[in-house]
């Protein structure tokens, strides 16, 4: 573990892999919940976790809080995403994988996913769980408009567009579920740590 300073009141914890990021996220959220940690933001990334707005002395405290690998069995909530697999890029994705489109769909519904982190837009979750060998490149030229609810792949991640926006991810399907609604008590359907399954609608 390495801790880097970020401005006057931020710290960045570097982790060996995404599993450790999730361990740290769960541990830091728990510590904040019980009042041991003061932080305005706890933001997981792909290999890091950022704390912003922390109290003085937090940097010295953190190493003592390092969770042992696998110590935290965080079973986040499970969200099933009803997906129609009709994406424009489903065929090219199947070609990348060297399988038929039916087999590609089967892979997507068979793979347990987890929210690693969020970004790009409110409620946009980077879902991990697909094997590295299935990573697909982004489009060379992003689409000017990807509709809300589009289920897509890029790099080793899956993601679902909460709102219509430009985007370079490969579209494999769509869902009618609302990914982000400010009127809900929990505005984002998919928060870091949430377990996700794509189910054929």
């Amino acid at each position, binding site marked *: 573990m390495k801790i880097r300073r970020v401005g006057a009141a931020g710290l960045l914890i570097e982790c060996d892999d995404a599993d450790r990021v999730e361990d740290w996220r769960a541990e830091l959220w728990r510590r904040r919940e019980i009042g041991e940690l003061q932080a305005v*933001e706890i933001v997981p*990334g792909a290999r890091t976790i950022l704390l912003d707005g922390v109290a003085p002395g937090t940097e010295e405290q953190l190493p003592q809080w390092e969770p042992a690998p696998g110590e935290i069995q965080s079973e986040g909530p499970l969200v099933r995403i009803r997906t129609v697999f009709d994406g424009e890029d489903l065929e090219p994705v199947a070609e990348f994988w060297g399988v038929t489109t039916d087999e590609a769909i089967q892979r997507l519904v068979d793979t347990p996913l987890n929210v690693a982190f969020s970004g*790009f837009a409110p409620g946009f979750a980077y879902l991990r769980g697909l094997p590295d060998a299935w990573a697909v490149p982004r489009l060379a030229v992003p689409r000017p408009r990807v509709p809300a609810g589009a289920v897509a792949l890029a790099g080793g991640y899956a993601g679902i567009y909460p709102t219509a926006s430009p985007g370079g991810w490969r579209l494999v399907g769509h869902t009618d579920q609302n990914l982000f609604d400010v009127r809900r008590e929990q505005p984002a359907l998919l928060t*870091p740590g949430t377990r996700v399954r794509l189910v054929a609608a």
Partner: protein
Amino acid sequence: MITVLRAGPLTTVQDLGRPGYAHLGVPRSGALDEPALRLANRFVGNPDDAAALETTLLGCALRFAEAALVAVTGAVAQVDVNGRPVERPHGHQLFEVPAGGVVDIRRASRGVRSYLAVAGGIAVEPVLGSRSTDTLSGLGPARLTDGATLPVGVPTGAAPLIGEPARIGAESVLGIRLGPRDDWFAAHRLFGSAYQISPLSNRVGARLAGNALTRTNVGELPSEGVVLGAVQVPADGQPIIFLADHPTTGGYPVIGVVDDVAPLAQARPGTTVRFRELD
């Protein structure tokens, strides 16, 4: 109620933003020149976190249906009430607007963003605890348009406080703390030369033009969380300093974090910016 007569190029409702949701991808947003917002609110007896209007360079014009106590801070700009310039006894504008009165914030002579606070605050519906317009994600109220109306809240009746407005300089020296990714660069190059504010700057970030920062590490950075004031360096080596509407995660390395972004809210394109290392 306020009716917008002239919205100007970009006038938005802003308060102290919505920090605490970055893990969901929600930008913090809020006033770019936070001290100017707080000052305007204090002048009219509002709490610091009341919502006000943030204008951009060319101001805006508003009709007030009811009499109101109003303050304008931030950029140096003439303010007219019913066509007559307001006097500025304290180097800022605090004035009464009669019922039906028209306030016109004119083109800024120095700085970029003016803040208009009205006693009681702008009472649009909050979104995730804030009334700020987030120009990146679209959260919060729409930017002002001609003919739009805005509700005004109930004044607290608190005594107005008088404070000193910040001076807007022709040149900015920004204090910066290096890291978290200064080891990806020959970071000392940041201090050797001056940068200019690019006209492409907006509420998301102040874009700088000058000496390109070359990478000593050519790897690709996995996305990680970023903070207000982060100096991100994309592939072309021209730094971007993240302002209130910045994205919550980024894939370009951050060479350092600027301590105080308020001067950047008032820095016009072409303004010279230098860096000074802190700590």
